[in-house]
């Protein structure tokens, strides 16, 4: 993450929005971009709203249709708090409404669990999965749950500011934090506080705590899956991802160097390249063996 890159970030809701109404009356904000090609649905997470994806997917938009949306109780979406499983039904409802029969899903952090559950519930709708910084492992997700509890405790004790201060040094890598300095920290903190209410964050964290940890949900996924992570990710390791790929039916691992939990923020070119290569390989029927990342992967480019 270079300061020059940060200056191009745009998290604003600027009137390009559309709203999808779910069966229970919730309204989900979404954006559909890109001229054509395979549909790639970008599933937001607690600290990444739908608008953020514009900044990290400019290259992908050239030959993919990109759908991003805010989860219920996030960003410009509203809705009643619900069980975590409701996110799966929300996604199906949105895809149905837009007439999208089949899509690639890109999940990040907690939203990889939504992708996991959706792929199990509606395998015919999923062309492939890119799971970025997934917090699960063959050993279950007790670590992920303890982290979520600590985030909820920080939110309860000190509000969104305390939560942001806790997650900022976790989700960004050492290099990004050093190069971004206080300016990036303050600007991102201000946008985080402006976009996320305490009630929304609390609802999302509580829903995430309710997400099931069953390892069998990984082993039953039929869709080709790319497990993608930064090498400075606080929530997983290359060995954990390798072990996860081992128990999955059709998965590969790719590590992006010198970035943390959110590779699309810190290495957007490498992230988009990985997604594009994955989609192309699935479309061509060559995924996964052998899955090899470019020799220049993760370098400054």
């Amino acid at each position, binding site marked *: 993450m270079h300061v020059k890159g940060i200056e191009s970030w745009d998290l604003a809701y600027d009137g390009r929005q559309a709203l999808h109404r779910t069966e229970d009356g919730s309204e989900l904000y979404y954006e559909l971009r890109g001229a054509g090609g395979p549909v790639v649905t970008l599933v937001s997470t607690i600290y990444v709203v739908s608008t953020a994806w514009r900044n990290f997917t400019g290259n992908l938009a050239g030959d993919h249709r990109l759908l991003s949306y805010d989860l219920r109780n996030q960003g410009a979406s509203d809705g009643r708090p619900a069980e975590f499983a409701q996110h799966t039904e929300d996604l199906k409802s949105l895809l149905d409404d837009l007439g999208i029969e089949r899509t690639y899903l890109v999940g990040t952090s907690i939203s990889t669990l939504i992708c996991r559950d959706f792929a199990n519930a509606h395998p015919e709708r999923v062309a492939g999965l890119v799971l970025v910084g997934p917090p699960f492992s063959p050993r279950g997700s007790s670590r992920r749950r303890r982290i979520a509890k600590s985030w909820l405790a920080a939110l309860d004790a000190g509000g969104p500011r305390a939560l942001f201060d806790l997650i900022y040094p976790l989700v960004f890598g050492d290099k990004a934090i050093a190069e971004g300095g206080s300016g990036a920290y*303050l600007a991102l903190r201000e946008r985080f506080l402006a976009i996320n209410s305490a009630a929304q964050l609390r609802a999302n964290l509580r829903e995430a705590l309710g997400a099931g940890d069953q390892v069998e949900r990984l082993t039953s996924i039929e869709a080709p899956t790319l497990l993608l992570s930064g090498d400075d990710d606080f929530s997983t390791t290359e060995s954990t991802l390798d072990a996860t790929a081992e128990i999955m039916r059709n998965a590969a691992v790719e590590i992006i160097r010198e970035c943390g939990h959110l590779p699309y923020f810190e290495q957007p070119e490498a992230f988009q390249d990985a997604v594009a290569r994955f989609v192309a390989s699935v479309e061509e029927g060559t995924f996964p063996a052998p899955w090899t990342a470019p020799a220049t992967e993760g370098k400054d480019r």
Partner: protein
Amino acid sequence: MSTPATPLTDEELVLERLVALLEHVAADVLEGPVTDTGPGSLRRLGLTSVKLLEFLVAIEDEFGHVWDDDVEESVIGSLDAMAAHISAAGVAPAPTKRD
């Protein structure tokens, strides 16, 4: 007989410069002059993260003020709070280099 205008305080001078600086940095997104300087004024302008970061960097250049992580969130959300913060830090407005 007119009475002489009351001289502006340091904080008011800083605020004037901040408003001018913001209008310069965000000229392409602002719909008009910045007139609201109360609590939450910056947030209400709806600046993107792009513009907010550019503004913070421009302030460092303009005032020789170095931001640190411990700045209260209200300072980053309001022009008047920002002016008070910069003024209290004891940095004098530098001559403007803008056009």
